[in-house]
């Protein structure tokens, strides 16, 4: 109660999120866990230094910086030219081109608002000029800009992989692949909507091979990056962390030396701006890990699971509640903070109900995407209103149809896990079709038969030890300590 009150006061005062989370962790450890005093609260800094053991975390600053470099360069215009040459001639083609260009650019830049500014800034006037209705064009480019976090390399996915609390930890490569399936479904739904809802508009230049060839030649270096990154990761050439460093080097070489859209003198400014963004995230994530530690100690996830079982929700009801909760959360919070804060509570319960943590991760990210667009507080709506100089109310009305499509996509992805985890399991040699978990199945143990269930294998490579694993270790330690205490307490014969 005290904790909730403190959090509420800090939030409404508009204190930075890292302070809110840090104070929450301090109060939790000091008041509830009895670790007050400097010795106990040093855990806040210990969590920060513990990031030196999480290799996958290194990918976050690298991808943020490479995205910023590409965002400041000429990649957006080149991608638009390719997409326009490819589909611009068909019905609703310019809208579909905006969608394709946004998805690829958002994947490269890793930022929804940047994508909206870079691609929307080019496509919105072009769509109006071609005769598209203003609300349709406005809503469509605003929605298309929010799709990037589903397409790898995705920062929210990396953060989910670090924060996940499932029985089995999540491999970033698997999560990227699961996200691709989901992105394909959502893009397809939006493309179909664009074709049928665009209305009678004059076609842009008819399709021509020579135009496509020129656009491909100009945009080849932009299009090659996802191929290099994903091909490198899934071809076993490098790990996601190494891929992120490769993307930094590639982005700088392409934008400074090949496209020459950035000068060496401009580069530091772009990097510093990206690093300030990353710095804010670092503190939020590190302090949230301290909150996670408290939740392990207080067994919050177990209590939440018991409560869910007491309500008799089942997996279907549980996922419905999770979706509503996350969409509402996404309206008021940024995606990274929401992922770090709520994954540790939601994921163990979901896994215990038989839901794949990979699948949950993708559902989490789609919810956050919707949050980017859902009024009253939605980053992309504010950005669109400012960039396109349109009243906020008009932007809100304009995104409603596409927001409904995203919600329909969310439902589809939530209850048809094959669309997300199917490709991952198929690649591992398993069945492509994955039924939705409808019963409260016990969580499958991922340990090898030679390992004791209480002692999971240490985190390796890109695998981050889950809270569930930490909980098992804690429990095992407590159980091991119990008989010892009993022996100590037993009277001497």
């Amino acid at each position: 109660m005290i904790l909730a009150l403190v959090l509420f006061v800090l939030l409404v005062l508009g204190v930075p999120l890292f302070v809110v989370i840090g104070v929450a962790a301090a109060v939790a450890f000091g008041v509830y866990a009895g670790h007050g005093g400097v010795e106990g609260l040093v855990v806040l800094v210990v969590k920060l230094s513990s990031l030196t053991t999480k290799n996958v975390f290194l990918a976050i600053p690298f991808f943020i910086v490479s995205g910023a470099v590409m965002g400041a360069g000429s990649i957006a215009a080149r991608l638009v030219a390719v997409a326009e040459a490819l589909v611009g001639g068909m019905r609703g083609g310019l809208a579909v081109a905006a969608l394709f260009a946004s998805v690829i650019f958002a994947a490269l830049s890793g930022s929804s608002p940047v994508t909206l500014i870079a691609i929307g800034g080019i496509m919105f006037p072009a769509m109006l000029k071609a005769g598209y209705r203003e609300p349709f064009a406005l809503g469509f480019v605003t929605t298309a800009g929010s799709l990037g976090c589903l397409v790898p390399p995705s920062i929210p996915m990396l953060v989910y992989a670090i924060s996940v609390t499932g029985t089995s930890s999540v491999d970033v490569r698997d999560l990227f692949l699961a996200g691709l399936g989901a992105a394909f479904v959502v893009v397809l739904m939006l493309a179909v909507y664009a074709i049928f809802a665009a209305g009678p508009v004059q076609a842009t230049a008819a399709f021509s091979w020579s135009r496509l060839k020129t656009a491909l030649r100009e945009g080849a270096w932009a299009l090659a990056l996802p191929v290099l990154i994903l091909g490198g990761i899934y071809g076993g050439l490098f790990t996601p962390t190494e891929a992120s460093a490769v993307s930094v080097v590639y982005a700088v070489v392409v934008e400074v030396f090949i496209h020459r859209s950035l000068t060496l003198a401009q580069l530091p400014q772009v990097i510093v701006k990206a690093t300030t963004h990353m710095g804010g995230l670092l503190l939020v994530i590190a302090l949230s890990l301290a909150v996670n530690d408290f939740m392990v100690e207080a067994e919050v996830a177990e209590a939440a699971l018991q409560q869910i079982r007491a309500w008799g929700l089942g997996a279907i009801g549980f996922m419905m509640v999770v979706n509503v909760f996350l969409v509402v959360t996404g309206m008021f919070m940024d995606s990274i903070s929401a992922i770090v804060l709520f994954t540790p509570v939601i994921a163990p319960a979901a896994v215990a109900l038989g839901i794949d943590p990979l699948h949950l991760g993708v559902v989490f990210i789609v919810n956050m995407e919707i949050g980017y667009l859902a009024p009253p507080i939605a980053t992309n709506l504010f950005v669109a209103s400012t960039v396109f100089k349109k009243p906020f109310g008009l932007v809100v009305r304009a995104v409603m149809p596409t927001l409904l499509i995203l919600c329909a996509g969310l439902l589809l992805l939530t209850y048809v896990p094959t669309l997300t985890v199917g490709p991952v399991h198929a690649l591992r040699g398993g069945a492509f079709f994955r039924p939705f978990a409808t019963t409260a199945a016990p969580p499958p143990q991922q340990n090898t038969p030679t390992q004791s269930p209480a002692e999971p294998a240490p985190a390796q490579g890109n695998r981050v030890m889950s809270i569930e694993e930490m909980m098992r270790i804690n429990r095992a330690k407590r159980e091991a300590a119990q008989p010892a205490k009993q022996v100590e307490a037993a009277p001497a014969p």
Partner: protein
Amino acid sequence: MSDERGGARRSLMRLEALVTAFERGLIIVLLATMAGAVFLDALHRIFAAKSGRTERLVAAILPAASGALSQVIAPTLLALGSFGVVYAALRTRQQGVGARKRSLLIAAIITVALVAGTRLLVLGLPNGLVWSQQMALCFMLWLGLTGASLATREHGHIVFELASKLWPSSLKMPVEWLSRLLAAGFSLFLAYLSVVHAHEHYVEWATSDGLAGLFEAFRVPKWFVYGFFPIPLTIMGLRFLAFGVRAPEEGITT
């Protein structure tokens, strides 16, 4: 009196500008070192492998070309591939009369330099840069904290977005000051905890004559890495007091 205050304020602003310039420089150096080291390590691992992908591909396509022959064909194919990529890059960059000839020549020079550089990397560092990721993770913390400190100056920290709209304009100023004090207080408290944390590691290192308290792969004392934390955290605390939490365009004038 007001002149004295104005002078002190100007001196503080100059000092702050100096700190900012240093932080920006540090960010560039750290990021370049991190990305460069991890990139070179990945490159080393790929090219130091006894049997690379190209060699396996050659062996699969031409089973007769095994052993020494494969080791000649594969590097040649790789060099040709590199030449092709460099040439394509140069052609994207340079167009017009005479660009083709010039690009061919420059591509050949760059390819030779790339091949020689890679061989040098593999031969010069037989064990690769095994410490690169550990070092990059340590630098990442320095980078992140320095970035967080700069974010304070530019009102870049994540805040609950609805909060600024909840308060009537008459209360915005006192609420902003309360936020600054809380944010500054917490940052300075974190800085203090960081000193305690670094000292614990220093004691561990000092009492073991420098044998304990080191990172595993990147053989640097932990206290040295963690000892940096209090600096950006303190600057951040002071910046919260000086610049505030919310940007002036959100209705706060200070």
